[in-house]
């Protein structure tokens, strides 16, 4: 029995040491990516190509989800607010929910599962088929040539996608509240404009999306680069990207929110 306890404790210790080691490895990899970003900036064509795959190909899921989330917010917001006779505030509710929380968070979650997993799978497969090793043998650094352009494309795409998500979501809320239910159009917009502050709500939301974009793409490229070069390795890495990104997004969101929206508004 004591032996089992000891081995249990050893297991915990082993896991803790392992994950700390991995965290350090990931941080070092992240720093290397930043240091070796010169190539991507000099040859911006590399980043543009990746912008197509991470940004443009994520557009459909982002726009459609944004529309539906906005419509649901409009409907639920109306349901609740009309009990207090405040249905004209539905625009405010939709806009603030989207700009502060739902836009950045949901867009980042969708981005992680659409683009993040694709980045991991692509880099992992390049590793499994020895493409990264071949590049290394050709005296081309895979971090500069493969990892950094994908990283920067993700960092650029994320805020734009989240802005689109929020804009389309607000339009969805408008469709439901004003066009379908018949809330007064003037008060919908004016109450929204009265309540939404550019610096406080919009800029803070954009800062969030930047942080999420860095987190998701950093996780995605690291998992791909670190994947064991087999089919199981790559599929495991893809799953880890989505799970780790989701946890990182939600955790970071709490931290950022507590710093940004403290006791005001």
């Amino acid at each position, binding site marked *: 029995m004591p032996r089992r306890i000891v081995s249990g404790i050893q297991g915990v210790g082993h896991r803790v040491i392992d994950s700390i080691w991995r965290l350090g490895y990931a941080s070092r990899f992240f720093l290397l990516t930043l240091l070796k970003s010169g190539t991507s900036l000099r040859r911006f064509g590399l980043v543009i190509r990746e912008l197509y795959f991470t940004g443009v190909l994520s557009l459909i899921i982002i726009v459609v989800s944004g529309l539906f989330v906005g419509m649901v917010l409009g409907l639920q917001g109306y349901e609740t607010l009309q009990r207090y006779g405040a249905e004209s505030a539905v625009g405010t509710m939709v806009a603030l929910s989207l700009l502060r929380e739902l836009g950045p968070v949901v867009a980042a979650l969708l981005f992680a599962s659409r683009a993040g997993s694709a980045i991991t799978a692509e880099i992992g497969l390049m590793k499994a088929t020895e493409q990264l090793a*071949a590049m290394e*043998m*050709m005296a081309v650094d895979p971090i500069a040539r493969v990892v950094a352009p994908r990283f920067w494309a993700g960092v650029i795409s994320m805020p734009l996608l989240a802005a689109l998500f929020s804009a389309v979501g607000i339009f969805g809320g408008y469709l439901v509240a004003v066009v379908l239910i018949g809330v007064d159009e003037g008060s919908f917009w004016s109450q929204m404009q009265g309540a939404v502050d550019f610096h406080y709500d919009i800029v803070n939301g954009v800062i969030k999306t930047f942080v999420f974009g860095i987190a998701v793409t950093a996780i995605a490229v690291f998992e791909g680069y670190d994947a064991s070069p087999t089919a199981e390795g790559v599929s495991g890495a893809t799953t880890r990207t989505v799970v780790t990104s989701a946890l990182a997004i939600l955790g970071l969101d709490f931290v950022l929110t507590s710093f940004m929206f403290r006791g005001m508004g």
Partner: protein
Amino acid sequence: MAHELIEIKDLHFSYGDRAILKGINMTMSRGKVIAIMGGSGSGKTTLLRLIGGAVRPSSGYVKVAGKVVHDLKRDELFQMRRKMSMLFQFGALFTDLSVFDNVAFQMREHTDLPESMIRDLVLMKLEAVGLRGAQDLMPAALSGGMARRVALARSIALDPLLIMYDEPFTGLDPISLTVIGNLIRRLTDALGMTSIVVTHDVQESLKIVDHVYFVADGVIAAYGTPDEVRGSVAPFVHQFVHGEEDGPVSFHYPANAYANDLKLEGRFA
């Protein structure tokens, strides 16, 4: 010694506690095709990785063109790698680039040549492997043999001094096999480079190489020209060349006595 491109001296390498190479000595001169043969897991690919500077030896050294590989700094190593290339087992073509862009890859990364000159060079390299017509295809659309040929065109893109081939014959049909074999020989002669072929395809490689090294248990077990190898009476070489099941390389992995493992001992006593 100036004509010796590669000099390997008392090379040891181990993964953790497991010793892979235990004192390898080799010299390879310019313009030759050299085969390194040995059973699976005998450390042949590791030897290539050591020559390319991808891993560090535990002791001993590899000298390429007079420089000790593991003493080079990263940019010096990268500088040296521009003069060598490696053909990976399944080609390792960049799946997101077309055949043309794959061959042009190193030219675009390492030179400032104008695009029109790159185009001419790429077409020349593709012509050399007979695939000029396939320049617009993506790697996914190529057969195994074609992919291997494109990879070959890519590896001669910058006219290297040395090409290393990691199992170039694996998984090819007999026609493609002959095509690749002859290409290796022809390109080596035409470009005056050195080729190191790691393989266990004995018959095909004996047709094209100048020298053969046999690696077994981390040391060079035998060495010679193809004719010497064919006529060799050394038991290991004989077993390997003729593909016999049992010999110095035993069919059985070292094990306890069979009866002990089956716990038969004393049962009938």
